[in-house]
């Protein structure tokens, strides 16, 4: 995309430095735990050691005897206000605090309110809870067996642990394609439970001002407006009306999907503040964060892929068990219980596909949310990219050639997929070829062949993913009925500077910079002259928030549309000032000039001044606009990743030697920020591929519940990423942009797994579930008779 503005204006395509950095590098950001109000109380939470148990007694007297402890709040207390249960975003219910039983280890049992952090923690240690353990259901397959203990005894008539069944696609056509197939590959793939583990945990400061009847909540949330509405709907009966609720999402220390849901701690803090009239702070610690906040993934997938002898793919069939823990607390668009999992045909021209997912209850924390991915897209991409690789190897075809043969071709866009999506644009072969050239694919193949002769284990893996982001068009996309548009409101001040507010909320993505660049592009006002604000529901226009790579596709588009409304009014003012016809004016970023007389022009700053000082008769004063953008379609970013791994036969360690990522997110707003997003996304793809997992033993004890055993990658393990790009603009987005925050997390794991399996294929290895840890590989190598 050609630059249309100077670096001083800093429109699209300029790597301008971030506007948020000056405060962060000085330690002057304001995160939730930095908010300290006079008279503030502290909340801490006692949690269950059992995964499933009846509560027989909660003793509070010892806790209440501790100096500084003011109250112990239990489910019984909340039940008086009917606040002991709350709805999830998926129209299920979850406990705020339990009255009868706990459903997972680390579940909230009681909350202690105290005058200091330390007193609150002392109080938690002194709460006495007696339990009667109940049979625990950990494995979702066993949860569905006849005779399995029914977990949701709170739901009358519930006779099993099945939550919902969802299916999509043409079953008959798919079955037919499978009966006609020359070759079929079938694979069980488990994508384990993981956790976003943003470095800032979750928390809030709730302040109910009794004088003005107003609740203000500073909160780690990615979706402040939706939270306000949910609070009003859930707590309307205790007097919290929506105009009396203000949610402030201040600086957020990473979100990745984990800060979309409403967690019980928020609700208890709000209740405590309303009851006491004092500000109440609740900040979870890391172990609470990992053990109780919403998880991601946990999909047990069985996939089958059908094709012809010549390597033409024909059909895909998938069955999946989705382990949701004890409540479906996913953060999907309401009509899609399995999110956008039906993007699973990926980058390939498959004529038939059918996918089924069943949601299951188990004794685990409720979820599941995304882990830096747009609603189950990683699960989909991982499946198709593994299956395509499996088929290529099965047919003894080069995985790159195999992909090139089966890709959707550039001339097929807009492309209607077998599962009903309309892909907006793509050039998949272009991205793969670029990645192969960059990494030296042919040379690596030769090296691999030589090393294999010497018994060395080296693998090359490819992932050519297609993402689906920017939810979404109101026809299909809503959360609890709230349509998934997003918004921008812009005001131009008389001196030509501006303020713009949005319904989204950055958690590190750099919105203060990139939104200013979009407005600079559209208006020619320097990005430095535009202040961007988000996250305060009293001031920002309504929007659904930032997750699922939706900010650029929705709010970014709204910025362009609002700016164009400003420009339309600006044209009228310019015509008035220049005594010319509107139709005779030509726009270039920053000014209107008279056609054929370029010396006659008015700058946007002059126009802004006139909007307040010399506007045409009959026109309203001022220069502002608002846009609520309802995208006509989703956007489909894509890319191809090639990865080289070496495997240590002695330790089983997989070393990622090189990783080349070619991404295509359409037109780019700030190349520096986009590259940074890809670096981070790749690292959050690498992490679950090789390191991260939350698992449970047979009685529901969590493994991976602290940073001791939940292995977030450090700078030492993290590969040295090599990035490149192609550019295929979105035809329907006003800026041709697509969104990029999650592409790399979605695409990277399959490239790594494909590389590892490629290194071990000749030994008979067909698949390894992530995370591919050294013990897992070591054991496999020993089984295959390979030693150092």
């Amino acid at each position, binding site marked *: 995309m050609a630059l249309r503005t100077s670096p001083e204006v800093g429109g699209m395509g300029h790597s301008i430095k971030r506007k948020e950095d000056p405060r962060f*590098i*000085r330690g002057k950001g304001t995160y939730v*735990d930095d908010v300290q109000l006079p008279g503030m109380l502290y909340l801490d939470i006692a949690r269950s050691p059992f995964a499933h148990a009846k509560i027989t007694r909660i003793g509070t007297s010892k806790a209440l005897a501790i100096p500084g402890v003011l109250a112990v709040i239990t489910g019984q207390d909340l039940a008086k206000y009917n606040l002991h249960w709350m709805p999830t975003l998926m129209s299920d219910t979850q406990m705020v605090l339990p009255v009868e039983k706990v459903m997972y280890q680390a579940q909230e049992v009681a909350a202690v309110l105290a005058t200091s*952090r330390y007193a609150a923690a002392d109080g938690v240690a002194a709460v006495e809870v007696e339990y009667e353990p109940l049979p625990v259901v950990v494995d979702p397959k066993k949860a569905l067996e006849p005779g399995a203990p029914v977990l949701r005894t709170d739901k009358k008539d519930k006779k099993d642990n099945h939550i919902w069944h969802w299916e999509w696609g043409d079953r008959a056509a798919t079955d037919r394609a499978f009966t006609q197939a020359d070759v079929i590959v079938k694979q069980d793939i488990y994508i384990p439970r993981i956790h976003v583990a943003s470095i800032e945990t979750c928390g809030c400061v709730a302040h109910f001002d009794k004088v003005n009847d107003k609740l203000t909540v500073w909160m780690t949330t990615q979706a402040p407006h939706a939270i306000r509405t949910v609070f009003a709907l859930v707590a309307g009966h205790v007097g919290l009306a929506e105009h009396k609720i203000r949610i402030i999402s201040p600086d*957020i220390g990473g979100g990745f999907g984990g800060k979309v849901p409403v967690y019980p701690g928020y609700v208890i803090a709000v209740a405590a503040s309303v009851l006491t009239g004092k500000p109440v702070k609740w900040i979870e610690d890391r172990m609470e964060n990992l053990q109780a906040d919403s998880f991601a993934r946990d999909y047990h997938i069985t996939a089958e892929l059908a094709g012809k002898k010549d390597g033409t793919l024909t059909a895909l069939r998938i069955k999946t068990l989705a382990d949701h823990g004890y409540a479906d607390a996913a953060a999907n668009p309401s009509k899609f219980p399995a999110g956008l999992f039906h993007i699973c045909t990926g980058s390939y021209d498959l004529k038939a596909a059918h996918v089924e997912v069943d949601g299951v209850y188990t004794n685990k924390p409720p979820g599941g949310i995304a882990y830096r991915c747009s609603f189950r897209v990683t699960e989909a991409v991982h499946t198709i990219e593994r299956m395509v690789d499996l088929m290529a190897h099965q047919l003894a075809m080069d995985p790159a050639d195999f992909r090139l043969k089966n890709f959707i071709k550039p001339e097929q866009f807009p492309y209607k997929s077998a599962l009903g999506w309309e892909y907006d644009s793509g050039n998949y072969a272009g991205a793969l070829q670029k990645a192969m050239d960059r990494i030296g694919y042919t040379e690596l193949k030769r090296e691999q062949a030589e090393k294999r002769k010497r018994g060395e284990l080296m693998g090359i893996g490819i992932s050519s993913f297609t993402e689906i982001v920017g939810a979404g068009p109101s026809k299909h996309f809503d959360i609890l009925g709230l349509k998934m548009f997003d918004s921008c409101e812009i005001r131009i001040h008389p001196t030509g500077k501006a303020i713009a507010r949005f319904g989204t909320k950055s958690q*590190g993505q750099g919105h203060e910079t990139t939104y200013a660049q979009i407005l600079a592009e559209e208006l020619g006002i320097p990005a430095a002259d535009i202040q961007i604000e988000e996250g305060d529901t009293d001031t920002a226009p309504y929007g659904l928030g930032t997750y699922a790579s939706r900010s650029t596709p929705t709010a970014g588009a709204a910025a362009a549309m609002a700016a164009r409304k400003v420009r339309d009014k600006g044209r009228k003012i310019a015509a008035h000032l220049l005594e010319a016809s509107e139709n005779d004016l030509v726009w270039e970023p920053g000014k209107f000039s008279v056609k054929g007389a370029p010396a006659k022009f008015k700058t946007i700053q002059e126009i802004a001044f006139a909007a307040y000082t010399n506007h045409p008769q009959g026109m309203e004063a001022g220069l502002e606009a608002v846009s609520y953008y309802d995208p006509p379609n989703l956007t489909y970013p894509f890319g191809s990743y090639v990865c080289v791994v070496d495997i240590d036969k002695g330790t089983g360690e997989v070393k990622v030697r090189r990783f080349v990522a070619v991404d295509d997110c359409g037109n780019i707003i700030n190349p*520096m920020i986009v590259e*940074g997003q890809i670096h981070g996304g790749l690292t959050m793809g690498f992490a679950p591929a090789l390191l991260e997992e939350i698992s449970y033993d047979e009685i529901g004890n969590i493994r991976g519940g602290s*940073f001791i055993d939940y292995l977030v990658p450090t700078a030492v393990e993290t590969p040295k990423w090599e990035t490149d790009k192609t550019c295929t603009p979105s035809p329907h987005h006003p800026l041709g942009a697509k969104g990029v925050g999650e592409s790399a997390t979605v695409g990277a794991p399959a490239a790594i797994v494909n590389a590892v399996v490629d290194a071990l294929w000749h030994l008979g290895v067909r698949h390894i579930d992530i995370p591919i840890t050294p013990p897992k590989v070591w054991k496999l190598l020993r089984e295959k008779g390979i030693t150092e």
Partner: protein
Amino acid sequence: MWVKLSINGEKHEADVEPRLLLVHLIRDVLRLTGTHIGCDTTHCGACTVLMDGRAVKSCTVFAVQARDKQIMTVEGLEQDSKLHPLQQGFMAEHGLQCGYCTPGMLMTSYAFLKKHPAPNEEDIRRAISGNLCRCTGYVNIVKAIQYAAATLRQGGS
């Protein structure tokens, strides 16, 4: 217990519980909120400060252990309205995104560059391996530290 200490060159004193953690003294009592808490268990490094020039994780140091010590936090990096080369480097190289790990990264790097003025990439990666970042994939943090090292070697303050 009575604790006197110096933070960023300023003398402070406070009456603290023996169990009070240094990070809570810095953040909650003295209200220097640039130092963050990410894990409480010494893994993430968001709380890293300097104690007598040594990088320590202030979530695992008692306030009373800092008695009579010189503490430096992220707020002490900027001198006379001039950013430290590390701060300049993190901005120039896009070494931060959400900003939450940044103060800890800056302090660890500060102590590291004092001892290793000309580090290679592997040295830098090892040096910051006690500081977790979830946003950047470390690529640009490494570049930011290299930027600062080069600036400092050229006599930048």
